[in-house]
């Protein structure tokens, strides 16, 4: 009886084996696939049981049980003793083995999984070899009720084993690839996260480089602009004084002219004609406007240059002092109160704050900027809430308004120098940049939350004490 030969020579059977190998590629569980392959082989050889052992990755002779029929499930994946049993022998020699009857007859150390479960009547074991390398072994067993395998069966099987080895190797490669892909996608996610962090850091570097170069430029330009600005402004003042004198003189002449009455002097007649033609009154009025408008323009340039210079250095360096922030806020409020009182109700929501080490007038400038901005965002009947408090090592001061809010697309540009949404002449786009650089200089930060139509809240966070600086606070100074 050679049913095995008939079945395993069947193309359908071979194709089914190949199909099983492909199954792994479609996401089937690897252990499941190995088991199915084994069962297919067991059926093909009309065996009662069988098992597959594979060499563990990274070793040359460590076998583990990869699949087995009629074996307790927990055994799958267990390592087999090195060099022991039929499997050990087959893997070691690379030669297939046919075992009929008592293992002792063959002289083999039959202690492996092949004969563990029952007294084996007949068994075949082949090595699985791919590209000259042994990757494992397959065994099939028949019980006593079936005929014994023959050497022919062994040869027949051997012919199939290269196909089976390929299927197993492919399968293993596929599993490895899956694992690699999983690893890669984890790696990829990590890389993306790191990349995002790098991008943030780079943006910050670009931002601070941009600020630094603007600062440098500002310092250089300030000198070049201030000189011409100085004489232009001063000349305008002199011109105004001259014009006043000239118009006084002219007024005196006009008075004299009136006093002369209808005296008929040709030169006087010519002067009178000229006066009528030139609309003297208009000239006199417009000259005053002209001078004052020009002065406004120059003063605006002056302020921009001043802002720029402040911005480039975060302002003049000042000695650190421990101050009462609430008093500072109140002083700043007094300065802007006139500007705010017609359109905003000011709510002071002060918490309890210790004295804070800072450069007081620089910090006042920050408060001033925030309050003026809050005021400008409100058209009429708004509220500006100033709150303070402490958390952890920071003091926070927030200025919230019920104004127009900041459009989301502008939110990350508001600290950029020269960015402004205010009408020409109302803002230089430096207020928040300067504030930002002042707060940064203090080791703090400014956060902003805003909703269009609802309002904006700026929160300044400052460390309670400046690093590497220990200063007497006001109380100690008074005591000293």
């Amino acid at each position, binding site marked *: 009886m050679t049913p095995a030969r008939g079945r395993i020579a069947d193309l359908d059977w071979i194709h089914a084996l190949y199909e099983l190998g492909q199954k792994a590629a479609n996401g089937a569980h690897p252990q499941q696939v190995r088991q199915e392959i084994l069962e297919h082989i067991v059926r093909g050889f009309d065996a009662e049981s069988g098992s597959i052992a594979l060499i563990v990755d990274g070793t040359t002779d460590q076998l583990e049980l990869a699949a087995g029929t009629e074996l307790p499930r927990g055994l799958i994946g267990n390592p087999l003793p090195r060099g022991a049993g039929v499997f050990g022998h087959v893997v070691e020699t690379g030669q297939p083995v046919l075992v009929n009857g008592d293992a002792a007859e063959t002289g083999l150390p039959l202690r492996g999984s092949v004969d563990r479960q029952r007294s084996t009547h007949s068994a075949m074991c082949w090595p699985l070899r791919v590209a000259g390398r042994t990757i494992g072994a397959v065994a099939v067993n028949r019980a006593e009720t079936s005929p014994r395998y023959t050497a022919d069966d062994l040869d027949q099987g051997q012919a199939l084993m290269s196909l089976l080895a390929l299927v197993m190797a492919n399968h293993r490669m596929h599993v490895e690839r899956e694992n690699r892909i999983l690893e890669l996608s984890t790696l990829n996610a990590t890389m993306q996260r790191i990349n995002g962090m790098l991008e943030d850091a780079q943006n910050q570097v670009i931002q601070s480089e941009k600020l630094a170069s603007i600062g440098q430029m500002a310092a250089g330009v300030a000198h070049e602009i*201030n*000189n011409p600005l*100085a004489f232009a*402004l*001063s000349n305008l003042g*002199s011109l105004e004084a001259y014009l006043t004198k000239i118009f006084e003189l002219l007024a005196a002449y006009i008075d004299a002219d009136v006093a002369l009455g209808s005296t008929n002097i040709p030169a006087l007649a010519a002067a009178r004609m000229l006066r009528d033609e030139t609309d003297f009154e208009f000239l006199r009025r417009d000259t005053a406007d002209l001078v004052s408008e020009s002065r406004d323009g120059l003063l605006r340039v002056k302020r921009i240059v001043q802002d720029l*210079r402040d911005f480039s250095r975060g302002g*003049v360096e000042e000695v650190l002092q421990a101050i009462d922030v609430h008093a500072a806020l109140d002083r700043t409020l007094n300065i802007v109160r006139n500007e705010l009182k017609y359109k905003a109700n000011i709510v002071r929501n002060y918490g309890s704050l210790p004295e804070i080490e800072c450069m007081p007038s620089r910090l006042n400038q920050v408060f001033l900027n925030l309050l003026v901005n809050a005021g400008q965002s409100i058209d009429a009947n708004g509220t500006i809430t100033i709150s303070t408090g402490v958390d952890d090592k920071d003091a926070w001061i927030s200025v919230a308004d019920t104004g127009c809010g900041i459009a989301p697309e502008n939110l990350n540009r508001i600290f950029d120098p020269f960015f402004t949404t205010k009408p020409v002449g109302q803002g230089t786009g430096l207020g928040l940049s300067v504030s930002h650089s002042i707060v940064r200089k203090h080791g703090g930060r400014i956060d902003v939350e805003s909703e269009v139509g609802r309002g904006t809240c700026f929160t300044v966070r400052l460390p309670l004490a400046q690093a590497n600086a220990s200063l007497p606070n006001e109380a100690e100074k008074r005591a000293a």
Partner: protein
Amino acid sequence: MSSLLIVDDEPNVLSAMRRLCQNAAVMPAIHNPSIATFTSAPEALDYLDDHEVDIVISDYRMPDMDGASFLACVKERHPDTARIIMSACSDIDGIVRAVNHAGIFRFVSKPWSDPDLKATILEVLAHRRLLIENRELADEVRAQRDVILRQKLELDRLERESPGITKVRWTEDGGVLLEE
């Protein structure tokens, strides 16, 4: 009559300052001051050797000699001259040098405000006048002390020659007591 000397490498600044200080319509408090202007500090130093000046106003940043060094020279050679420095850039080191070495009276930043500058000039002039007056008074006091000292020496000599001669003893009714 007050006299000013102004140094700036920018001629337009010089003419603007001249207008500001010279014109009675602009600055009536200084009557017809004499004003000398220079675009170069060394030339200004030469001028100062031959002319007495009340106030020297100098720009800080100039090509051949900076304002702080120039004013330090002025202080050394003409200590009575009041010194003001002007600058379009507020570089802290420069200001420190100007204050410490050139002993400047005022620092004015550019662009200046005309009223402030006028007030500064008047103030510095008044301050300088006070200083000079003070010194003149001190000189006078010292001179008078010399006279007193000489008289005292003469008295001492007389007393040594004829003891008691410098002292007069009065009786209650206003008579003079002569001993022996």
